């Protein structure tokens, strides 16, 4: 009941997160033309079956379209945002070779990915308190083990500023 399809591992989060093809921001549309039968289209079919879910997971805003049995030979076409089209021939190649080739020509390099990860980490600094949009927490009262929000439970009298001020005034009077 939890396992659906021929290779249910493709549906696991771990598998999807292992995908290493993150395409550049300029790539907007990816089109895959392949055939459902034929020895030469085998690599293309495996690429579609195994790697496309990973690519879509890592590039959520990329539009991917598949076309079956339209041309005699399989190919990939990438449409960039300035109108440029990049054609990648897939005939006779292995699916691993295809994914490596795509990663090389249009994928973000390791340094770029790491820089982006660093920037994201800096943005989500747990030491910052503020609106939910920019920070993790809004007030220290949300943290486990800290004084709870006085809006939810009233503070003990000794901790209120009113009491302290009265004590200070009484001490000063004496």
């Amino acid at each position: 009941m939890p396992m659906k399809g021929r290779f249910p591992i493709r549906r696991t989060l771990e598998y999807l997160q292992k995908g290493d093809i993150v395409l550049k921001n300029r790539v907007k549309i990816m089109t895959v033309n392949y055939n459902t039968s034929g020895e030469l289209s085998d690599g293309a079919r495996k690429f579609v079956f195994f790697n496309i879910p990973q690519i879509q997971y890592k590039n959520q805003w990329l539009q991917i379209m598949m076309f079956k049995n339209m041309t005699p030979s399989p190919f990939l076409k990438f449409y960039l945002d300035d109108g440029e089209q990049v054609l990648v021939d897939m005939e006779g190649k292995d699916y691993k070779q295809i994914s490596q080739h795509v990663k090389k020509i249009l994928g973000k390099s390791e340094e770029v990915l790491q820089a982006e990860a660093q920037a994201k980490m800096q943005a989500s600094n747990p030491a910052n308190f503020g609106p939910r949009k920019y920070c993790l927490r809004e007030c220290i009262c949300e943290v486990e083990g800290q004084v709870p929000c006085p809006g939810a439970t009233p503070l003990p009298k000794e901790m209120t500023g009113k009491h302290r001020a009265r004590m200070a005034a009484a001490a000063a009077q004496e």
Partner: protein
Amino acid sequence: MFQVIGGRGVQVTRLLAPGRAVLVEAVRGRKSRTDTVAKSKQGRIKVPPPVDPTEMVVLKERYAEYEMITRALRLEFKEEVLRKKYEEETGSMAEEHRALMVFNDQENLRMLQQRVVRIQMEKEEAENKQVEAAIERELQQQEFIKEKEREILKLQEDAKNFITLENLDQRIEEALDSPKNYNFAVDKEGRVVKQTMLQ
């Protein structure tokens, strides 16, 4: 309060109306429909501010021109900022991108050559197969003809031994003269004995 003006009056009013972007209708405000009007506002008739026609026309033209210019400038600056941001992202990658595209083109060319060679070989194989099939078919036909000829000859040979009306009496005499014994015996070892006693 609404003003219903029809026909040519519309153009005049458009010319004379202050060119405000938003047309504000009478808004309800704090008091509801049934609340009484305040004592100080009992006989008040709201009158729009007076408009000098010539001044209005001149002002409208000038404001239109001014706003057009400022809007154009604003958009220009916005576009420049966006383009700068885009350029700094992709401009630095332009050379590498070009190099990668060249690499991709070479790869495609290599695949193309491979494909051309493969198609050539496939075509030759197909042609060879066709020729062989034709030869095979020819051979088959020849065999067939030969077989048929053999059958005809065999039939001709057999025809000599047929029983016809002329041969009939002779053949009956021959058959009666030579009785044939079809009996045979088989033992448990499987040895067939054709020579038995005719009863």
